[in-house]
């Protein structure tokens, strides 16, 4: 089947259009839905296969990034969301969406429940918003979205992206292969907390994690902003090299697109 993606919007979320575009390119149907339309019952989570929490600045990061939006879901939609999770469907969060999901406690590890917060995304070490391109490496995780992916080149743009959890939680995430992406260099070697490879000081270089089922995934970098070859900062150099080799650059950056394609293919069994 062709999955339908619910793209959450409202209250300062701002990446809904390009995220919808990414899912459309991957072959999904998309619907940008204002959270108040879900609360009012005009739209229902159960009518969708994928829920997408896009990037943005929900509530201006006031009271902590993602916190106020997560509260709004907790207070009004959490039962629907749990039902959605239990029905075996997929949830993806990027940047502010990852922050919202973190505060919702969606990254369940064994012995914890959905709704328990296990981690945090703190202010960047330099305490400042930063936009730059980074490399991230897939850690052979159980995540549905990242099958077949190795190293990606993608932009980050956030002020609060420094992943943190305690050591026991980290051990569990690691043991269960729930650590999906870590910041690395171009060849995929760990950033080892070194700036700017690790752009925010994230613990263990963590850029994205998933829940124990691999169906719920969040990450700080923005793959949806890195789908076209022309998006890449080295586009002009690569174009020049390709030209001299008598080649053409491909239109899309396929490995970044794979995240969205994996989600779509999950429903094409």
């Amino acid at each position, binding site marked *: 089947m062709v999955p339908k993606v619910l793209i959450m*919007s*409202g*209250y*300062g979320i*701002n*990446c809904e*259009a*390009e995220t919808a*575009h990414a899912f459309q390119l991957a072959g999904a149907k998309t619907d940008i839905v204002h959270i*108040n339309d879900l609360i*009012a019952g005009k739209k229902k989570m159960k009518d969708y296969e994928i829920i997408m929490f896009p990037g*943005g*600045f929900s*509530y*201006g*990061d*006031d*009271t*902590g990034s993602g*916190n*106020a939006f997560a*509260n*709004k879901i907790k*207070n009004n939609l959490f039962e629907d969301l749990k039902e959605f999770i239990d029905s075996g469907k997929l949830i993806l969060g990027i940047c502010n969406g990852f922050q919202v999901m973190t*505060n919702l406690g969606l990254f369940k590890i064994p012995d914890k429940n959905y709704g328990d*917060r*296990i*981690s*945090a995304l*703190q*202010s*960047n070490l*330099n*305490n400042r*918003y*930063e*936009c*730059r391109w980074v490399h991230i490496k897939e850690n052979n995780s159980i995540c549905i979205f990242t099958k077949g992916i190795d190293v990606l080149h993608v932009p980050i*743009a956030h*002020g609060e992206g420094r992943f943190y*959890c*305690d050591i026991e939680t980290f051990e569990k995430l690691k043991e269960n292969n729930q650590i999906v992406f870590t910041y690395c260099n171009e060849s995929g070697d760990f950033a080892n907390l070194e700036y700017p490879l690790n752009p925010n*000081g994230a613990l263990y270089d963590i850029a994205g994690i998933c829940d124990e089922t691999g169906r719920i995934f969040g990450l700080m970098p*923005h793959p*949806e*902003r890195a*789908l*076209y070859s*022309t*998006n890449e*900062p*080295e*586009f*002009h*150099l690569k*174009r*020049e*090299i390709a*030209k*001299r080799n008598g080649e053409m650059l491909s239109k899309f950056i396929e490995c970044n697109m794979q995240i969205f394609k994996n989600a779509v293919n999950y429903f094409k069994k």
Partner: protein
Amino acid sequence: MQIESTKKGQKTFRIAIDTKEKSSEAVNIEKKLLGLGYNVSIDVSRIYTLDYDFSSEEIQMIANSLYNPVIEFSRVNTPFNKKFDFALELGFLPGVTDNVANTTTEIINDLLKIDIGLSKVFSSKTVYITGNLKKLTYEDVEKLAKELINVLIERYHIKTYDEYVKNNGMEFIVPKVHLTAKPKVIEVNLNVSDEELIEIGKKGILDPDTLERRGPLALDIEYLTAIKDYFKKEGRNPNDIEIEAIAQTWSEHCKHTIFASEIDEDVKEGIFKKYIRNATNEIRKELGERDFCISVFSDNSGGIIFDENWMVTDKAETHNSPSALDPFGGAITGIVGVNRDTMGFGLGALPIANKYGFCVGRPEDRNIVYRGKNKSNPALLPKKILEGVVHGVNVGGNHSGIPTPTGFVYFDDSYKGKPLVFVGTIGLIPRKLPNGALSHEKQAQKGDNIVVIGGRVGKDGIHGATFSSEAMDEGSPATAVQIGDPITQKKASDAIIKEARDLGLYNSITDNGAGGISCSVAEMAKECGGFVVELEKVPLKYPGLEPWEIWISESQERITLSVPDEKLNEFMELMKIRGVESVVIGKFNETDRAVVKYNNKTIMDLDMEFLHEGLPKKKLHTIPYLYNKEEPEINIINHLEIFEKILGNHNNCSFEYISKQYDHEVQNNSVVKPLQGIGRVNGTASVIKPVLTSKKGLVMSQSLYPRLSEINCYDMAACAIDTAIRNCVAVGGNINHLAIMDNFCWCSSDEPERLFQLKETARACYDYAKIYLTPFISGKDSMFNDFKGFDENNNPIKISALPTLMISALSVIDDVENTNTMEFKLVGDSIYIIGKTYDECGGSEFYHAFSKLGSKSPKVDAKYARKLYERIYELSNNKILSSCASVTLGGILITLSKMAIAGKLGAVIDSAVIPNESLSLEKILYSETQSRFIVTVAPENEKEFEKLMEEFEIQKIGKVTEKDFVVKHKNEIIINTSLERMEEVYKKRFKDF
């Protein structure tokens, strides 16, 4: 107002959120204070003060929803339990926008399903300070407090550890606005002496209760006489609100009187009509079918064709005065304000790119100047201004989800007293809406409802940014400055641009900027003929505002719409479910009268024609300005030393720290980014791909040459125009589909010499736009950028900003793949210079490095340049260039070095072959002659390149190498330096900013 915290059953609560480990905010405050010489240890708590009667269960639920237990914990009415020397509480003054508090209020309302109302929550933070080496004094902490906040809008309270323990923590402070005066309308008698009229115009209407004047109206005697005569005809005295409304509408800011007035004998129709509008009209006529303008000068932005389905809009503004007082607030309200100019274009355009430009003093300058005598009322230092404006655009742009692909910083001591803060926004709008209407056409209809959506009205921005420190104590609101609330605006923007517009729910829309609703309603009413407003319906931030204040307040985040009766319910329902406050405040009509009622009483009733056109015409005169005539002679002995000095100076070095804190990737439209190459060098133009499914692109650039104002203003304007266009062309812009905008920032515009400079500048705008065939589509002016005050020794001083023309260029291109970046790409590529170099070092970075100005300004040959730019676009489309850079500030050598740093590749250059007019080596390297490019070409493309460039002066001057930057002159090596060293020089100045 302070409330003690010890009583049981109190109705005020103080929730503190602490971090388990030291937060990066605390670490960064420590760093900042260390830079100021204080070695201290810092902890920070976030504080929420709640002035509402919650139960203990409720307050616990609220506290739990304000932190993440993995890293934080909360305290309710409980002091901090660690030892420290001092506790410093930092919060807002009453009436200042508190976004965190607003969000917290929403969280509480949603959590408890209640409505606690306005002004019940206040955010602040407590900073706990401990001296590491020595104990701090109270005075030390007071000094630190003033470094961390702006006393104009923020408050601080200090307690020693002992006091803190004894008082069981900080006091509970509820910074509510209390207005005690009863709202009233004053009848003003204008049949008084000329002296009194002048006093009213300068200092404002006298309040009979307080016997204080209400602040400047900026109406001179001629204007007041016209108003007096008008009311004689009406047969009555005016009310205060009527005079205030006329003052707003007639202000320089709104009517652009200097640009509109007759000037000398030869400019009867005024500078704007003769030089700017005429240029555009004549160009459009000449272009005929190739005309790409759709809407110019008539709307909040200018609109041009993007493709058959889409139109793009552009607008640039300045926010100079507010930024001098509160740089953060000034800049954020500037950027979100110009976003509204996009939302208010036509029936509403979507903002797709923000631009910035900051003209400031040197951040190293620590000499304080004062607004008042005896060291009173100090102006902010350039570094603090820079920090604030950079942060303001950061929050405004990033929070709104609008990318910031381009911008600049320009440093000159003349901007020390008053910075120039340029903010611009590009918008995107379908040319036709779903109902078939043309999107740029709008008309309020008689009978339409006047609807205001977005923020509420407070005392913010009354009389623009007139500043009075006495008014800013506890209990009285901060009227001088405002803080933006991007999220409130984002909610309104989404509801309008993404929903209501395409549903056709309104007939007209405009932004609320200067003059607030008094201007937006009166402007829109021109479309149908008149209006009646019921002022008591306007939602307020707090009770007690005077009617005239409600009418002219410039409170932010508001949009005015004209909604027909049959669409009203649907419109209001949509706004409600999107969390956007909206109210009907009146009706448009065709009575030719501007009527305002307050609680059923008519308090304003003006003739529309008089309100808009009644201001007396003025005549201005100019006297030639005495330009600088001295030309220095400079011989360089150590070339490397001077090269490094110029590369590392303020206006050539890297400002990556700004570029990277502005999101330029959101909306997924970025192609040529603010930082180019793996060496991350600030570019002079950027490219975006605004429609996700189309290959077409937008190229943008901004340019200014303020130092040339002291040499020749005509050339100053010519250079700004040529550079803005050339920068676009360098990255792939198309001069045949390129529009420009003018932003004049002048000083002392009441002086005939300054008006002479203004007229010369405008004359060049006309001449060059005409030859380039690049129409002006929008523009703005700010005429009095002067600082008047005193130095440390009480000597009166005046610091006037250099007359500054900022030109923005926007070009539409067919394919973003055919763009260029500046960085050297591959070893072995040939380096060419395009264009001859002349003796034109006046105002250059080279002379500036020797504290000289010079007298030989660059001359622009626009006919030649236009042809060249068309050809470069052809080369870009044929992908013949492997890199391309526009030669700008610093000249050839600086441009070459940046291409090397950006590509992390070296070069060998032979400066002797650079085409020039028998110049000294120094001038060849550093002259800022216009219309030149440096390009690199793959060896296999050289022949084709040279053939295509046959009719232009080009010269191969070197090759790209693997490492080292080497410049030879004849047989001598004059510069030989490593890439690492160059990069260090280029990047070190703002490394720790």
